[in-house]
């Protein structure tokens, strides 16, 4: 190799040029694509919220997760989600863009002791009312999040989970239907206490027939992701408890 590539000056210049070139390529690409990406993320949120309340295109089999297609999701979202509320302290206001609130940022603000907003979505399907609440927590490697749809008896009507980087084949399976479907019908109450739902290892109810045990069957090989899901649900329930108390049928 030519000796000129070994000199310090060349090395420093090369590094500087490379950083500038790569940096500008990525910056250009990111700003060029960001409107598309933002739009996709917005549709995804709408799809997820609708999925949790059971508005989706799932077949009868327990196979794959099928959302409302992106070209229809905006209309469907508008027709099924009747109200979007923002809880801020004791104040509850209506906000049609509440679904764009980033729960991660709100939770960070809460930890710092600043004001924070909690969104709730009220959906209606076939005369039933659903209260859909977003969740955010930690899995094994990275963030996990989702939505949980409750009715006024605090029974889960559906959930949706997603994750950033859980292990494919193990923790990543929290977004599989066989896992999410188990939550349907479970109650988050234990008597009158808000208990959440834990993902239980060594469950003696693997078919998930008992709906009032606050437990669903765990995923083999994904203990920490499962614990993350349990923690996420109980945190969310704790956070939204004051609001849930106001809607609970007594």
């Amino acid at each position, binding site marked *: 190799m030519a000796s000129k590539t070994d000199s310090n000056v060349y090395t420093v210049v090369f*590094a500087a040029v490379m950083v500038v070139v790569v940096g500008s390529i990525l910056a250009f690409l990111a700003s060029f694509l960001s409107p598309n990406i933002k739009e996709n993320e917005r549709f995804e949120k709408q799809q997820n919220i609708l999925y949790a309340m059971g508005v989706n295109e799932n077949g009868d089999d327990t196979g794959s997760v099928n959302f409302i297609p992106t070209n229809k999701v905006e209309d469907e979202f508008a027709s099924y989600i009747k109200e979007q509320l923002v809880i801020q302290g004791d104040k509850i206001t209506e906000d049609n863009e509440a679904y764009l609130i980033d729960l991660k940022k709100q939770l960070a603000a809460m930890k710092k002791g600043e004001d924070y907003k909690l969104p709730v979505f009220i959906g209606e399907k076939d005369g039933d009312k659903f209260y859909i609440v977003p969740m955010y927590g930690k899995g094994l490697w990275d963030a996990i999040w989702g939505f949980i749809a409750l009715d006024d008896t605090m029974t889960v009507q559906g959930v949706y989970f997603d994750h950033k980087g859980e292990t494919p084949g193990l923790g990543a399976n929290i977004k599989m239907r066989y896992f999410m479907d188990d939550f349907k019908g479970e109650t988050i109450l234990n008597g009158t206490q808000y208990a959440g739902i834990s993902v239980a290892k060594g469950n003696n109810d693997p078919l998930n027939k008992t709906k009032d045990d606050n437990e669903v069957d765990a995923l083999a090989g994904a203990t920490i992701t499962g614990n993350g899901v349990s923690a996420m649900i109980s945190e969310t329930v704790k956070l939204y408890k004051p609001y849930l108390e106001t809607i609970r049928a007594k």
Partner: protein
Amino acid sequence: MALLSKKDTNLITDPLADNNPITIQVLGICSALAITAELKASLVMAISVMFVLGAGNVVISLMRNIIPSKIRIIVQLIVVATLVIIVDQVLKAFAYELSKTLAVFVGLIITNCIIMGRFEAFALANGPWRSFLDGIGNSLGYGVILIIVGFFRELLGSGTLFGIPVLGDPIEKTGLYATGYENNGFMIIPPAALIVVGIIIWVQRSRNPALVEEN
């Protein structure tokens, strides 16, 4: 003139057998352990690595005469990371669903030692076309092992292939499970992959003793 000379063909076929990246070069073991619990994940990973390694080898090969040797590893790392981010961003904008499936693989690809290993061992010393073939060959060799491991782990661990039950229902006790067969939970956790890879290495070396290392 044939599209590929004999030497070029070897670049593709060697990594499939006697110079396999996982079983012979022992590169890419970490991802082989991490994501082979399911056949589908193995396949996705194999295809993604093929893309990144093929393209990365070409880029590094084109730059091979201007890369300062003192910082070549950093340069290689930047090339992989940039490629992966570009692909990730483009998919996010135009094929969002696919990008969601692949998101978890992104980090695993950047840190995959096969990629750095092939840049360092091959692309830095060879032309773009040969480097491209080397990249494809090695990622095929990697993919084959991933798929074999994924096949056994998913079949024995979950009783499914590509998510489709093939041995019956373990909870309702139908099919093979009616005879008392149980899924082996051990196959789902990463150490099982090490054992499957070990068996592949054993089989390969006993069929071709020339591969056995002296020590």
